[in-house]
């Protein structure tokens, strides 16, 4: 569902990604961990079509991003550490706006379903700026799933959330039906990466330095691999 082949990304003379190869199969949940500056967000930006690779090829849901970025965007829902919402608009206005951009059929019904799922139906007329960070992130999840995308990208969705909200993030995503989609998530939290992902990969120094199925891993081994790779940098 997501195919990343030999992707290189450089800003000027500074290479960030140095030939990343990564595949996420349909229905799989892959978590990507790595230290700050490893290139996780850069990779997510490329897969989400926000940025173009310097070299290499990316396909999402069968669409080559170099030629069919517009079609690929319909297949992708993204939740980031930024909410990607308009603070001055209400929750309902935000979702109605994005529903129009994504040509969502029967948007009112879809918006009601999603807002109820993330527990914000009662606050649908309130401006987003009056929401707590956790509520904003719940609305961001609703925005990302509005067009029912088969591929979901979660770019450090737990950043900025308090401990309770971060722990509840999995429930919100579950309630909104993320589990039946193909998911690629970046996080700094190794425990969360291991618990949520079917497979865990470590991105370090612009390359995928390690990947393994959850069945082959436990918390201690993942921590040991992570420390070994990050220390070696």
């Amino acid at each position: 569902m997501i195919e990343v082949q030999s992707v290189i990304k450089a800003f000027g003379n500074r290479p960030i990604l140095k030939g990343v190869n990564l595949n996420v199969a349909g229905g799989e949940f892959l978590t990507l961990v790595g230290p700050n500056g490893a290139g996780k967000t850069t990779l997510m930006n490329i897969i989400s079509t926000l940025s173009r690779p310097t070299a290499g090829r990316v396909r999402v849901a069968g669409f080559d991003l170099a030629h069919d970025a517009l079609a690929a965007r319909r297949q992708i829902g993204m939740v980031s550490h930024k909410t990607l919402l308009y603070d001055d608009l209400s929750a309902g206005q935000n979702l109605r706006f994005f529903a129009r951009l994504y040509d969502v059929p029967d948007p009112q019904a879809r918006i009601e379903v999603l807002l109820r799922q993330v527990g914000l139906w009662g606050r649908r007329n309130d401006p987003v700026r009056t929401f707590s960070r956790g509520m904003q992130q719940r609305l961001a999840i609703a925005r990302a799933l509005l067009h029912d995308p088969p591929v979901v990208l979660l770019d450090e969705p737990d950043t900025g959330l308090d401990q309770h909200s971060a722990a509840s993030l999995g429930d919100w995503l579950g309630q909104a039906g993320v589990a039946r989609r193909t998911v690629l998530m970046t996080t700094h939290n190794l425990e969360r990466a291991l618990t949520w992902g079917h497979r865990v990969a470590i991105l370090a120094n612009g390359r995928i330095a390690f990947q393994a199925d959850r069945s082959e891993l436990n918390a201690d081994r993942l921590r040991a691999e992570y420390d070994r790779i990050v220390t070696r940098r």
Partner: protein
Amino acid sequence: MPYLRKVLAIVAKDIAAELRTREMLSSMFVFSLLVILIFNFAFDLRADNQAALAPGVLWVAITFAGMLGLSRSFILEKDRGSIEGLLLAPVDRSAIYLGKLLGNVLFIAVVEMIILPIFIILFNLPADALPVLVGVTLLGTLGFAGVGTLFSAMVVHTRAREVLLPVLLFPVVVPVMLSSVKLTAAILDRVPLSEVQNWLSLLVAFDVIFMTLSFMLFDYVLEE
């Protein structure tokens, strides 16, 4: 037409956001009013120098107020991270340009519609010139906002964006300013538009050429 629907969705979103805060319109209006008032008080306006000074004053007010609106157009989107939400949507980049352009033109036009009658009264100008003046003002605004929307998106990733936007924009929109001032002066002097046809042609040509160029280049501008 899905394309047009998306353009209008972006315009409607900008209007809804502005109606919630009224930050941009109020600051643009107060600023343009101040410019007109200050110039009105600063110059000793007599009947013989009014016609010479008034067009320049009007376009200084419109340009600086417009600059306020243009600079906020993408800065707010960038600072709040919402621009990425917009770019992630399956929307042609040119639709984003058109939506933002229409929003910018609308906001500047609203301010113009309020300050034009005030300008006419304060500078003791012929009120019957207002309808033609509105037409020329809108033509000038289209050219100014057409390039300004593109440049606003260009500088949004830079640090000194508030300074950089006018520095980049003013040299490019010199033809718009010149022709708009000349046409405004002709209208206030009751000179037939046929006698200033070349300025009108320049303004229309600038609008068409630069809006088309901006429309085509916008996709590249949004790349990081």
